């Protein structure tokens, strides 16, 4: 394995590719949102405002159980990631 850590290389590449993909998608989404709100007519603006109101009317309590599960999974993920530092191989 000396000098030929394929899994390590795969892991690094995957992280890099996913981060780039995430940045591109986030930028694309923000750009679409800005352009659609800037050039929206009256009807589109009203629809957008209605959508915003609909989003504000979401009752968090209804999704409390799902959100709790997501929070627990995030904590578990963070813990597993932190273990990588303590279990990292001695180089």
């Amino acid at each position, binding site marked *: 394995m000396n000098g030929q850590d394929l899994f390590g290389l795969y892991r690094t590449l995957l992280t890099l590719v996913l981060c780039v993909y995430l940045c591109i998608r986030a930028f694309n989404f923000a750009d679409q949102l800005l352009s659609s709100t800037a050039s929206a007519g009256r009807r589109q603006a009203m629809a957008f405002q209605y959508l915003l109101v*609909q989003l504000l009317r*979401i009752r968090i309590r209804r999704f409390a159980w*799902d*959100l709790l*599960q*997501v929070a627990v*999974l995030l904590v578990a993920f963070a813990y*597993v990631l932190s273990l*990588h530092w303590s279990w*990292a191989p001695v180089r």
Partner: protein
Amino acid sequence: MSKSPSQNAPSLSELPDDELINYGQDLGLDLEHGTPRGELLRLIRQRQELLLELDRDALLDIVVWGRCPVRKSASKEALARHISRIQSSRFGELGEPGLQALARLRGISTGANEPRANIETRLKKADGWRGKIRRVRRSLMGQLITKVVDHKDDAEYKFLPEAEGTSLRETIETEGVVGGIARKLRGVADDYVKDKLDEIELRIDRKLDEIDQRLGEWRDREVANRLKMLKLTLLFSILVALISLGYDYALRSDDGKSGPANSTKVIQPVELDDPGQLSG
């Protein structure tokens, strides 16, 4: 303009379920979404028959007691609509026929000679404990607010003025036969159109509410789906992270075996024959 229930019957069966439910609720029925259509029609027709049976004066008594703004010529259905919204429980001010009619409209069967106090108790019981709590809460709030704002509302009840202005005779006297009849007909047509427009507006409002409700349900389903996807992604990420961790652990233990501790060569002591060799 008001139709009799028998005239309403064909159009009633043509109404969609949600309109039927709204119509039934307007008449004071406690209907829920999901009730079978046949059952809805049966309950509404039963209510229409009950309205036919009830005395109009008794219904007017209830409306006056509840201080609902109605015309004296209002139809029984219109009166029933107003009565369904009355929440007062001060039955002491309501006349005997009115009390009997109110009990029947709220689904309480009363005997002809049943004591008044008994009917009042049953009406209050029919409200349930929530209604009782609401009554007490509102009563307390009312007492508090009237202490601050001294408002006396003891004015005698008055019906709304009738829509008809002048009589046909007066109109003909002032505008002639053709003009008077035409004006009267136009007035009736205007009233009809106004009623229909109000009805259409109400229907549009209900439809908009329904669309809003459906969009809300769709939004909730969408959020729930997104959360589900997020959970699955997180689970998969944790799984991959665990595999990666296992790989790190394996690599570390492998490094430990083939590391410096094992690869160090043991230096054997060399026996020197001649100590002078070192200095040389």
